[in-house]
């Protein structure tokens, strides 16, 4: 069944796949994670805030984003970002935005909703008495959050944040729908050029499996250390 299998196409193309495709995928994953965690934390603070309009707005955003498929969100922002950029710099025409930036905005805003829910349970996992103690010491809300609650919330949620990042790493493959050469997109280009779909997609699957499996094992070990 593997008689007509052409290993050579992988040998020829893997430097391109890794240097162009995988680098794009990893960059997008890392930056979207950073942006997503920061924005997600802000959203979580809004959701847990006592100012009701803030809490409602953040809640509505998170629930909306979480009920729409990522593919649709990718299309939304691909067309929306040029208009947002035009509005931001006061241009009359939609601004051309590179595929990378459009994808980065999309993934940051999308994943922020998921990171928000993780950070919210992280904040809830810090005993209330900690915040009271901080206030008793004379700290204001900002100081309490910055020096007492958030550092502990982060520490408790590191395994979940990393697991969500593995999900993000897999989700980045969906930029394929915009014909952007991420890891899958690059492989698919070679596959279609050389008529070698089976070889290329199996190779992609193996690479993803090895990376994600290793990462999730790592997260599991970390989990044992965090929740001693």
């Amino acid at each position, binding site marked *: *069944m*593997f008689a007509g299998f052409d290993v050579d196409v992988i040998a020829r193309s893997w430097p391109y796949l890794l240097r162009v495709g995988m680098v794009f995928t990893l960059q997008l994953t890392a930056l979207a994670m950073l942006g997503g965690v920061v924005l997600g934390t802000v959203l979580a603070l809004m959701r847990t805030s006592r100012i009701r309009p803030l809490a409602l707005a953040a809640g509505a955003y998170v629930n*909306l984003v979480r*009920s*729409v*498929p*990522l*593919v*649709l969100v990718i*299309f*939304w922002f691909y*067309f*929306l970002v040029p*208009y947002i950029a*035009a*509005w931001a710099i006061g241009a*009359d*025409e*939609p601004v051309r935005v590179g595929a990378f930036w459009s994808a980065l905005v999309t993934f940051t805003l999308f994943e922020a909703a998921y990171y928000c829910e993780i950070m919210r349970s992280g904040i809830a996992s810090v005993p209330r008495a900690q915040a009271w103690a901080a206030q008793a010491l004379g700290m204001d809300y900002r100081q309490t959050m910055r020096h007492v609650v958030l550092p502990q919330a982060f520490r408790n949620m590191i395994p979940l944040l990393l697991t969500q990042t593995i999900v993000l790493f*897999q*989700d980045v*493959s*969906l930029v*394929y*729908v915009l014909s952007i050469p991420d890891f*899958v997109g690059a492989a*698919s280009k070679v596959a279609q050029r050389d008529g070698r*779909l*089976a070889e290329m*997609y*199996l190779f*992609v*699957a193996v690479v*993803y*499996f090895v990376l*994600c*499996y290793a990462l*999730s094992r790592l997260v599991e070990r970390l989990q044992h250390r965090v929740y001693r």
Partner: protein
Amino acid sequence: MHYHWNWHIFWQMSPDGTHTYLETLLAGLGWTIATALSAWVMALILGIAVGVARTLPQRALRALGNAWVELFRNIPLLVQMFLWFFVLPELLPTPLGDWLKALPEAPFVTAVVCLGCFTSARVAVQVAAGIEALSGGQRLAAVALGLRLGQVYRLVLLPLGLRIILPPLTSEFLNIIKNSSVALTIGLVELTASARAMQEFSFQVFEAFSAATLIYVAVNLLALSLMRALERRAALPGAGAGAGAA
């Protein structure tokens, strides 16, 4: 900025000449629901089987269950779609592969199988967790009553374990609806693909995507309230599980 809104676009004829754009969106919704429901049935059956395997005393079966879960969890859904659609027919004996490629609804069938397997791994994790969350006494008591292993699972562990995991199963069900949109990459014209087609033909980008977004939100709310009703009906008084003991 110069974006021309035109909300009447939904009642205009689409390029197929017989359906309005609104009707093409609703047809897409039909495929989304058909795909999600069929895949969900498959995911439940496979997921319960694999989840149970992960809790059995036999080591080989447990290893098999774990391998199944790792396999489907560590490869992106998009890549799994491609493997089922493009790669599997190539690896099968030629007549069988050709038969697969020639199936009339090949994208639909492939999407159902792919989503079914993908989600079964997630369901399996929940099922195993639900069974393990029961106190060990349940299993021992069932065995002491003289039940065979099959009966222990069918009459005691599964009815209780499945009730515990209804809330996480609800979110997996919502996920499968959203994930069905990935099938547009293999040519299934579900809701997202219909919105995309409408955008391409009519140039009314934001109307098309707004409509699709609203429909997804509505379907989500509907599915959520159905599952909540199911959770209430399935709750066993005193069984602790969904009764808010935590």
